[in-house]
């Protein structure tokens, strides 16, 4: 299963290293990781996505919780969570119509277009990983030059 973990950590040097090292040494996988400071500068929030069966995910949560630098660890239920990822695609423009087609496609996914050149264009999409995957499939025929993704970030919905 795919799991979104929200890990509130003390904002100090070396914590990201310890978290990633824990995944490596315990034989877990990091699918994506995004880190940023919270409104309280003492803490950062890491959003980590990982794959594993229920038992493995439970172990990851427990091992993260055991770490002294983690303040709170949550396995988020994706149905009760707002989760998004930002992705930038650089696509090829080969035909005269391509620019317009890419614009249409970007609009359909709530994306923005940047850096329009004669033979390339950039599209910024902020969505769920599924939607980004869907966009990627549709963008493939144009030719994908490069992709950069932030990894998922997430917050639990109120009352969830």
């Amino acid at each position: 299963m795919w799991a979104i973990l929200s890990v509130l950590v003390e904002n100090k040097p070396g914590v990201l290293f310890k978290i990633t090292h824990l995944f490596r040494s315990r034989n877990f996988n990091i699918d994506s990781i995004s880190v940023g400071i919270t409104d309280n500068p003492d803490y950062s929030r890491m959003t980590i996505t990982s794959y594993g069966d229920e038992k493995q995910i439970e172990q990851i949560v427990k091992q993260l919780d055991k770490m002294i630098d983690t303040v709170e660890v949550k396995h988020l239920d994706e149905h009760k969570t707002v989760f998004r990822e930002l992705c930038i695609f650089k696509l090829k423009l080969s035909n005269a119509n391509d620019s317009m087609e890419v614009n249409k496609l970007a609009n359909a996914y709530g994306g923005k277009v940047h850096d329009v050149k004669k033979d390339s264009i950039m599209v910024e999409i902020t969505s769920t990983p599924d939607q980004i995957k869907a966009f990627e499939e549709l963008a493939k025929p144009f030719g994908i030059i490069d992709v950069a993704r932030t990894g998922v970030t997430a917050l639990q919905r109120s009352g969830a």
Partner: protein
Amino acid sequence: MEKNLINIMESMTGAKALMTAMEKEGVKEVFGLPGGANLPMYDEFSRCDIRHILVRHEQSASHMADGFGRVSRKPGVCFATSGPGATNILTGIATAQADSAPMIAVTGQVPVAMIGKDAFQESDIIGMANPVVKYAFQPRTPGEVPEVVKKGFYIAETGRPGPVLIDVPKDVQQNEAPMNFPDEFKIQGYHPWTDPDIIACEKAIEMLLNSEKPIILAGGGTIISSAFAELQSIAETLMLPVVTTFKGKGAFPENHPLSLGPIGMHGHAEANKMMAEADCVLAIGTRFSDRSVGTFEAFEKRLKIIHMDVDPAEIGKNQTTNLAVVGDVRTSLRIMVKLLLQKQIKKTEESVWFKHVRETKEYWKENLKLHPGEMGAAKILRKLREVLPKESIITTEVGQHQMWASLFYDVIQPGTFFSSTGLGTMGWGFPASIGAKVARPDVPVVDIAGDGSFSMTENSLATAVLEDIPVIVFVLNNSTLGMVAQWQRTFYDRRMVGVDQGGCPDYVKLAESYGAQGIRAQSMDELDKAIKSAISSEVATVIDIPIDPEEDVLPFVAPGTSLSDMILPS
């Protein structure tokens, strides 16, 4: 308040603050070796009451601190310089972590401005040690030192104990700052203890009462939390046979009628048999390591498991359990004892299961085939047990002698047997025995050793002699890396590679060259005299006992098989 103000105002160097903070923690001894990057801290020994015990290799300092910590249940402290000094203690730190032993390792580091420049004797010890410490600190300013020490000791000794590394850059040791020694501090993400769940304790009793073949499996956590009386009370009240893990050896008196001894790869035959037949186990403070349980799959379908542990991350890590009781195991067991009293539950009649357990125990007592020679391992270790007072402390090295000690040396007083069980560090036992003797100078301390392991840290003889720490090294000498040789005989068709020690060195002469007593014992009579002489000796003693290099440790549960598939002596 006034006193507090004075504390805040006092200015001193980081090195002095470190020593002062350690004195406040009750530290009386430090095991270590000086070098360029920790000299300011060493200079403080000349001005404080902490005793410095010099080692000949930093690895030994870490094992001494570990042995001290396991016996005293307070963190032992070791000092090493930066670079190679720091990397030399890594094995000791990893050993302490694997066996949940409280330890404070203090390393010197190059000055803050030099960090990351590949300076002379610089090593990124924080990065290297990260996976094998409970926590690591690197104060960057002298003013941080008092709180770092306070937090370090708190983390090392609370909850599931473990090693804490404090890496102190040289300028942080040298520079002065106004120091505040706090009494209180906050570590937000650290919750060492959970209150045990009374309902879970009640359920545990119910499960044990409703099963036909209940058993207790006591792990190392039982010893760490000193839950000896509570364990015995529950075992006796419910008439439960007690097996232990190897780390848990001696959690329960091994001469008790309910004791079956350790299970595992080289567990007692009766313990492995009964564990394999049980239908409900109260597992206390154990991680269900592969060496202890082999493959549990064969009988876990009918085995109900109650898992009691202070570390929530151990629940379900290696073994799926039916009931978890998270919290300090001594507190949990106390709740169970209380509930049993309240409910007036006390078993007096022998159940069918109990009779079967007793008969099995008697059968194996009579029928386990032992080495026929006068100097067989069982006879040697039983002799040691016979002569040593029951309160004596044992440490062991790692290998055949260790497993023979597990099989044939009965621990009578709980909490007097210590071994590197998790990491399996050869060379641990001798320095650990020195640390143990420093913690308990009033009792004999014996390192049960093999020649291979003893070779690894034998230069600690210098420490034992010069610092007047009269420990006893009991070398079962087969001039072979015996356990490896046994695997080569068993699994590699007797192709013996890299195991012959060639009778080198002569351990009697070696001991004497350090100024220790060296005795060779080649008969039971000589052995008896040697042990008695060692106990009354004012200097450390090495007893060299030549044994048959072909003797195997049996029973033997081959890796990846079930406890019920033991290889027995033929």
